[in-house]
């Protein structure tokens, strides 16, 4: 399966491209996908996305297809034609008092 991963937001300083494609021979979870991405872009990406205990940082939201994933262990579902779209958003605060 080909997984297209889109990175949006406060992550451009640690990834050199906003979109990568990862080929996998088997079903993988969101966590495994982020591990693969971190191998490519380094620990800075892992630290931006995951906490020390391995959970998503509070300002990170991941969508598989159109649906936000509630768990890092959720599988990446094949969308169409052997590919899937994953969007990773790193948000920042919007306003103050």
């Amino acid at each position, binding site marked *: 399966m080909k997984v297209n991963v889109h990175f949006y937001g406060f992550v451009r300083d640690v990834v050199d491209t906003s979109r990568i494609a990862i080929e996998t021979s088997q079903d993988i979870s969101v966590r495994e996908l982020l591990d693969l991405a971190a191998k490519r872009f380094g620990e800075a990406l892992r630290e931006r996305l995951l906490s020390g205990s391995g959970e998503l*940082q*509070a300002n990170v939201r991941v969508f598989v297809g159109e649906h936000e994933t509630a768990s890092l262990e959720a599988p990446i579902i094949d969308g169409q034609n052997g590919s899937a779209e994953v969007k990773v958003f790193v948000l*920042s605060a919007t306003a103050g*008092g």
Partner: protein
Amino acid sequence: MQATMAQEDVWIPTTCGLCYSVCALKVHRVNGTVVKIEGNPDSATNRGRLCPRGVSGIMSLYDPNRVNVPLKRTNPQKGLDIDPGWTEITWEEALDTIAERLKKIRQEDPRKLLLTGTVTTQDEVPFSRIFTMAYGTPNGWNSGAGNHCGTAEHLFGALLHASWAKQPDPDYCRYLLNFGTSIGSGSYYCVTGMAQRIADARLRGMKHVAIDPFLSPSAEKADEWIPILPGTDGAAAMAMLHVLLHELNVYDSEYLKHHTNAPYLIGDDGLYVRDTKEKLPLVWDPIDSGAKSFRAPGIKDFALEGAYSVEGVCARPAFALLKEHLKPFTPEWAEPITTMPAATIRRISKEFADEARIGSTIVLDGKVLPYRPVAVMYFKGAQGHKNALLTCMALELLTEIVGASNVPGGLLGMNSRSLGHPETGQPSWTPKSDRDGLMIPGHWPNVFPPYPPKEVKATETIDLKGLIPTCPGSSGALPVVMADPQRFGVPYQIEMNFHIGSNYVMTFADPKAIAEVFKNVFQVSFSLFLDEATYFSDIVMPAASYLERLSHTADWMSSNAPVGEWCYHIRQPVVKPIAQRRSVCEILLELVERLEMREEFYAFGNLVLELKEPYRLDSARHYSWEEIVDHRYRSLFGAEHGLEWFKQNGLIKWPKKAEEVYWKPLSEARAPIYFEWFKSLGDRVKTNAQEIGIKLDTSAFQPLPEWRPCRAHTENGAGYDLYAIYYKLPMQTFSGTYNNPWLDEASQINRFAYGVAINAATAQSKDIRDGDWIEITSVSTGNTIRGRAAVTEGVHPEVIAIAGCGGHWSKYLTNASQEGKGLCFEWLMPVGLDNLDIPSLTQDQCVKVQVAKARVQA
């Protein structure tokens, strides 16, 4: 002479944009000219009421000092008094220059871009943050972190009320303890609607007790004013808690057991005692004489007091620790700190306890709910100090102890729960709970709430919020870090400031220090006026005002009234933008295209604006601003309620349900009365700060409240014998409205608006008479400001009170910059970590000063 015939005579519905409330307007336009602004009686928010600012908007629309064309500075030197040497440029040149600079920075490191805004541009700032999020920078700063913002109050809003702000229940509250807010007068959230509701509440018998150093516009409408020394509100609250728990033995045990963490067992280390299997906090069931996880089925009762041997440790319920902790803080202890007589503290504690009517119920919408008609309000006045976190904690616990949180009559979140429009179920949010059972807001205007806390990290942003994740909004540390990012381990410098309507030079702290921070930054301003902040701009673009622009729903979580009806309004142009003025949002959309970042921008737009299918933005095509607004309305309120519908009708409203307003009894989310996670969080902050090489006082990260002196209480110098404080005015908003001639006239009528309130006896001791020019010198900055004395009995003898944010000096504000048009309080306040409450990054707004009659009386 021929009479002019009216060819057009229309009333247009829209909303005011002169403060952070969203009051509905009806604007009268005749032959293309706005001739009158009135409140819209159809709105559930302000119910036809308007404040002086609202009716005066016409004068800001047609102000001859407005920026009308794009401008470029010709003088490369920047400073507070250095004329930028403006020259007109075309829009094309302006946008080319900006786009080129933005492209370059984005390629190098997008974090070098900063967005500064303010709450009065709140309809534009969130949209601008979509732009900066898509761009890739995390850096934003509302200058409200200075003298406007509730900062730490918002943190406790999240932790205890699942909301950004709070209000007393205007329908049922019978006793309002108001620690220094402007509620019922001219500022705070839902301002005019709540002013009327508070007035109505007083007529039906609610007692309003104002505890404030100054007999403020709100306090003068109260039943009782109790002067207090600035920065000591936490001590007063500690003593009241002592009276409630140790003298009156009044607390709502049922509420504490079922809706707070009061029964959670705490070990010797100050942390929860957890079960070995699921690691959930334990409680003690006194019927079964055993410890159980708080979620365990069949708990017969929750112990609130006592000591128990559990898991090999001696454990006590959180409530027992709180009670014991409060024992020394008697009214006699508080009297010399606060200057409130011990007898007064006891009396109001008793009144508060009696009116709480613990055990009583009320039936609303067929539901039997607890009836606790008391509320404790506080905002900038009480929490704008170095002891902000612990002060907020003490004040909040008063409401929690008597079970008056989000129940009829009590203190209500604005608006913690929304079940949405009947046809669409949107917008909707509901407080949730985490694994420990503690409350998580269902919605948060800053995208993600401060609880559960983010991981403590080396700071990646320019505001220290990576290191200190408990800061709920704007950070007071930003100018400090921006001045020397390397010192804080920030690997970049801010190179460009996207500046939207914030006069940060005048509204945070010492303008000289702020000027040093911003003078080397390329600044692009979207401005109504050439104010003091634009002296640091490289390009100024003429922004359309709220009467000239369209907004994607001006309303937000805390603009709706806490009770009654939900109401969402349109903000639409009532005249075409005058001259070359343009809407910020339209300009941003043009920049999105020039920067080729449509995909990212629309992706964030869909996420942040919560657009549902079929109204999500598709990056295969371009949308105009009107189309995006239309999508937003239809996504929220259904296909029938698009932009055209809102243009005609102005607003949509529907009744609030009892379970939305009084949600707490129906929720499983517990409020903390013991802030267990603060201590370990503080330890992590301290360790990480040490690794970076900075020393931070993290001792305020503690689970229970106390009172600590602020810098103003300990910083003394010969002759610096008075405290200077700042307060808000009903006829001005921050620094932004001082050029308005109608508001100027209203301010001149009120001798306090442009003057300095000083106690009569104090003035006499300094040979100062009413109307004399006086000089005020700060012990912290050494700066001196001048103003006219307004001698009164209505201010604490040890305090001077300075209104609003006047004292402009920009020569381009021809009205506001005249001498005698108020004072800029911030000249008195220093910039530095020493002046911050570290856990919330709240900037202190109180300082010791020397006051003397000016030698020159003109």
